[in-house]
């Protein structure tokens, strides 16, 4: 019997399910499966996640014995390389989005960013740059190089989003302004 890719997945799921049921849930919830609190017996917080783990474990066991179609899709190292690139591009874009606004406010001495978080242009600097970087970066990832086309598209789409959300609605905040 050959060790198919689905069986690999089954093994991963089995380990995950057991880890959830035996380690994560018991250590990370405040009550057990049934709980005697004061005078009542009630269902505790660990019950539902244990059921979830049970679904995963049963699924893993079934997947092990199941014979499914031949068209097995599987992960390869190329997927991992892609995910790394993707993480890099998105991480950079989100870092710009998060940090540029407060940085600009500090450099220009405009005051505490928290109080400026719905005041243009401070509130839009981070989103404009981060959003542009995200679009341009992903277009560049597909094209194999950064291009003016991607940058222009990023700039236009972030500006459209600002016009869509920030200008008409007072109580709506663009990322990252709700966190300040």
């Amino acid at each position, binding site marked *: 019997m050959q060790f198919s890719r689905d069986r690999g997945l089954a093994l991963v799921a089995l380990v995950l399910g057991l880890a959830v049921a035996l380690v994560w849930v018991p250590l990370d919830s405040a009550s057990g499966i049934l709980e005697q609190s004061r005078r009542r017996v009630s269902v505790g917080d660990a019950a539902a996640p244990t059921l979830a783990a049970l679904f995963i474990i049963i699924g893993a066991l079934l997947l092990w014995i199941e014979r499914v179609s031949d068209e097995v899709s599987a992960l390869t190292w190329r997927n991992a390389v892609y995910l790394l690139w993707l993480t890099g591009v998105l991480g950079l874009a989100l870092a710009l989005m998060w940090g540029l606004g407060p940085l600009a406010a500090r450099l220009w001495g405009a005051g505490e960013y928290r109080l400026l978080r719905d005041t243009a242009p401070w509130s839009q600097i981070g989103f404009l740059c981060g959003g542009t970087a995200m679009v341009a970066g992903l277009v560049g990832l597909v094209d194999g190089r950064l291009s003016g086309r991607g940058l222009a598209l990023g700039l236009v789409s972030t500006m459209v989003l600002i016009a869509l959300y920030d200008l008409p609605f007072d*109580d709506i905040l663009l990322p990252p302004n709700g966190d300040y």
Partner: protein
Amino acid sequence: MNNFVKAAAAAMALTASTIGAAAQDWTPPGPIKLMIAFAAGGGADTQARLIAEDLEAELGWNFIPEQVTGKGGLNLAMAIKDEPADGTVIGMVVAETLGYNMYVAEAGVTPEDFTAITTTAGFQMGIVARAEKGWTDFADVLAAAKGGEAIRFGTMSDKLSDLAYLLGRENGTEFNIVQVRGGRDVLNGVNAGDMDLGFMAGIQTAGVASGELVNLASALSTPLEQTPDAPMMSAFGVDYNADGYFMFIGPAGMPDAVRAALARAIEGVVTRDGSKSNGMITKAFGGPAVLQGEVLDGFLAAEWAAAEALLAEASQ
């Protein structure tokens, strides 16, 4: 541009309204984050959002509402605790959050870690069943329970579950207490027949008016406005009550001037006839109920003490 329009609107509002004069001595240094401890779209959430809208229209302040739900308001309390206390972060909870819920959670915080700003409205908390059950007051329920019928009692907080337990114990019987997330769930449960009766905090008003539901008892320290003849829980040997209010809070250490300005501003809109929030509160919660300052602090201290006593009583 928005800010300019708002400033102009605020200027006009200031000349026109009397509330403006009271709150003039303080203006928020930036937008105010309004945390809401209730699910979007419900009565409590709508109330908070309408108060914010009214304040924006009258004073030109800018509110940014945000849902921080769960754990009977404690999620909000824990989130607001470490925010700046300059009046730019406030939250709406129920008084029970700083009372019983906080006491029983043993979360390492007390009401001292917060600034209670003002209450806005009270609950008309009753014990309610469907009319077709044939019960007219809570004594009928007790009779049925003693007759051997298994009675399901719907509640929506730990405190109410304790009260339901005491109501049974003091009368020599026991209920199957079914605790759910909120008042709407109790109403749905009672309507679907999943529960026989339950605590409802005002959501029963329309049903009682139409005769589908019956207020079997008042869970307050006072009679219910809609059915003043319904007995009190004290008639059944339970000397605790479920008096409760919607309440704005902030982090501890809020300057007195800020606290007073916020409280007055909120009081101004919820008590003014014709404001959106006043209309909503009158319709859904029987009118505004405002406690502030020392009165509010005193109420909360009494609630904290009552929580301790109730918990000890219910643990026996």
